[in-house]
């Protein structure tokens, strides 16, 4: 479909027409056509993306918003009963929603903070003179290219209570077996491990690209001024990386808010409860449980929109803090 759209709507901006005998009216028409092409051609070229985005991005977003104002069940999605903001109001005293929100925040912190710090360190190592640097870059990106299902299933086995490798190693060290799945913190730690494993290399490569864009002169100047390696890192590297760090923070925050596959599969394919006590049920998982286990599409839609609003609120809060700091400086 994408290619169809490109060829038809892209035609006006196509390469020059075949040479024709020059004549005044004809060249005027060609000029007009040329101007028209210059003016609208670019839009035509980017149109396929926006058509797809409208169909698969905007429409579901708006329809979800509409559904969230109704009582609607998966058994009959066309029977919608208007309930206004009730689905949102009930989230306020929905213990499972708040539990999921708390878990999302804690798993988000547990996974994002170490992930970005480690990525920075790895980027620093890769940036230095290194034999076989391409090899290590590919290695860093491998977990990112691994399917979340395969990775999580392996981690489920690693963190198994009775026959898991992690507990076996702990046993060798003299520590008792840990029931990873059933503790609140142990399960969240385990889920975070999967996230860290998958995304650290990806962020490291982004940092590496930014590192390579920092001019060597800055380091030389700092060194001439007598700055130590640590001072160079603090006063040259980190300020230069600031926009990149901000970008990775934003992307990781969004990813953490929508965390779904890892906690779903960490439950050993036993459903979307996020553990017997919902101890690692994230917002994404709770949304899925409401929609596709309990079949309440309206309530699931409200959770989806609440997640978007939470992200927007977080973004607004960050913007406010930055504006305030700029003014007080």
């Amino acid at each position: 479909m994408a290619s169809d759209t490109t060829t038809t709507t892209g035609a006006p901006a196509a390469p020059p027409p075949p040479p024709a005998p020059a004549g005044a009216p004809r060249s005027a028409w060609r000029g007009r056509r040329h101007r028209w092409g210059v003016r609208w051609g670019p839009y035509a070229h980017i149109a396929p993306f926006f058509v797809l985005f409208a169909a698969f991005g905007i429409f579901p977003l708006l329809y979800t918003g509409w559904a969230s104002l109704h009582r609607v069940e998966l058994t009959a999605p066309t029977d919608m009963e208007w309930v206004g903001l009730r689905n949102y109001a009930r989230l306020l005293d929905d213990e499972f929603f708040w539990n999921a929100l708390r878990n999302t925040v804690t798993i988000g912190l547990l996974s994002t903070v170490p992930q970005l710090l480690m990525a920075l360190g790895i980027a620093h190592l890769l940036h230095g003179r290194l034999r076989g640097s391409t090899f290590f870059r590919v290695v860093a990106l491998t977990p990112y290219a691994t399917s979340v299902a395969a990775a999580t299933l392996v981690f489920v086995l690693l963190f198994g209570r009775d026959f898991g490798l992690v507990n076996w190693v702990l046993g060798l060290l003299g520590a008792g077996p840990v029931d990873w799945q059933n503790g609140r913190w142990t399960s969240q730690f385990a889920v975070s491990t999967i996230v860290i494993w998958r995304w650290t290399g990806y962020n490291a490569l982004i940092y590496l690209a930014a590192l390579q864009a920092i001019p060597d002169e800055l380091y030389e100047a700092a060194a001439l001024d007598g700055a130590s390696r640590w001072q160079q890192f603090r006063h040259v590297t980190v300020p230069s990386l600031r926009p990149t760090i901000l970008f990775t923070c934003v992307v990781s925050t969004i990813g953490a808010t929508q965390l779904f596959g890892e906690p779903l599969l960490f439950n050993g394919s036993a459903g979307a409860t996020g553990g017997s006590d919902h101890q690692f049920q994230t917002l994404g998982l709770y949304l899925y449980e409401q929609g596709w286990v309990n079949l309440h599409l309206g309530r699931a839609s409200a959770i989806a929109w609440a997640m978007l609003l939470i992200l927007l609120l977080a973004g607004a809060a960050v913007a406010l803090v930055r504006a305030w700091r700029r003014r007080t400086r």
Partner: protein
Amino acid sequence: MRTLIRRFRRRALALAAVVALGAVPAAGCGPGGEDPAGRTVLTVGLFGSFGYQEAGLYDAYMRLHKDVVIRQTSIQRNENYYPQLLTHLVSDSGLADVQAVEAINIAEVTATQADRLEDLGRVPGVRREDFLPWKWRQATTRDGRTVGLGTDIGPQAVCYRKDLFARAGLPTDRDAVGRLWAGDWRKYLETGKRYRDRAPAGTSFVDSASGVLSAITGGSARRYYDEDGTVVYQSNPAVREAWDIAAAFATEGLTARLQQFTPSWDQAYANGTFATVSCPAWMLGYIEDKAGPAGADRWDVAAAPRPANWGGSFLVVPKSGRHRAEAARLAAWLTAPAQQATLFRRRGSFPSASAAHALPAVADARHPYFGDAPIGRIYTRAARGVPVAVLGPKDLVIAQNLADVGMLQVDQKGRRPEDAWDAAVRTIDNALDL
């Protein structure tokens, strides 16, 4: 930023969906049509392992009907299969010509999707009197349309490890083992305590408290709903009694503290860490798969304390299919007594067609993996005593949360049974949206 959100969400969801749905839905969604040779292509959408293909039933049907080709798709877990089936039904697209429905969902399908399904009670060759009356009724609407034909039922026995029983000083002969707990699940609990006192190191009496809960609950007619369709699980003495006995297994330390149908449960079969498990007929194949050759000559089957049913399925034919008549004929043939008997002999799925129970293929069946146990005799007797269950639309949600939230907390987190019950009730209340 919104683009990012969408892209991220879509990627995560797509991945998760593919994973969760068993990574095969694409093939199952193609509309039935015709193959290059002009033969009618009928698609069959299943969950778990029905064994039609393995038992050679498709090949047999295609030999009888040269103009038909059957293609099957299957999704591992019903929890993932059922939401997809509902989505396809309500959007009238992506359906196979014949679809399976688990017994725990049949009430909801019959109540809400009947007008999207063919009335199979009128298909030529389908004889109502061939089926167990309660099985037939479960898929019949109030106005008398039968939208699903029963495949198998899940009469229960108890599978046990002869070698572990011997080492714990318990009898190993299947009739003697059955007598240990005949008539009362509490005797099963008492046997568990005897086992615990002399248990071989590293083994437990039973796999999980949730498994015991499902087994006992399957023995009462009224479970989560009453005859008027009111949710009554909280006040139903049968459910509370099942809960108390199952919780006692956990608090007495008789379980291996596992969750059924998870990787660690499978590992425990392979490593032989528990001595008994509630065993509906369809579980035999699962045990053989997971315990593998190492478990041969160790497992056996004894009668359960009381007759109970756990699981079983139906076949339905969606109206949106392109070959409805052919699909209905296929569903009728697959569920006819002769084919159900074949399936039992080859795969251990116990016939819901009572007409098949007397056939030699069923009545005289033995299972080599389970010490040549006379599974035909054991399960036929169990099936005879199964009560006619009152089903309700949200049976799955209630049963799942009682097991995977409530009883799992008792079993794995050591929570007090009363507290765990309250936690389960809160989750169920939230899910039912009453």
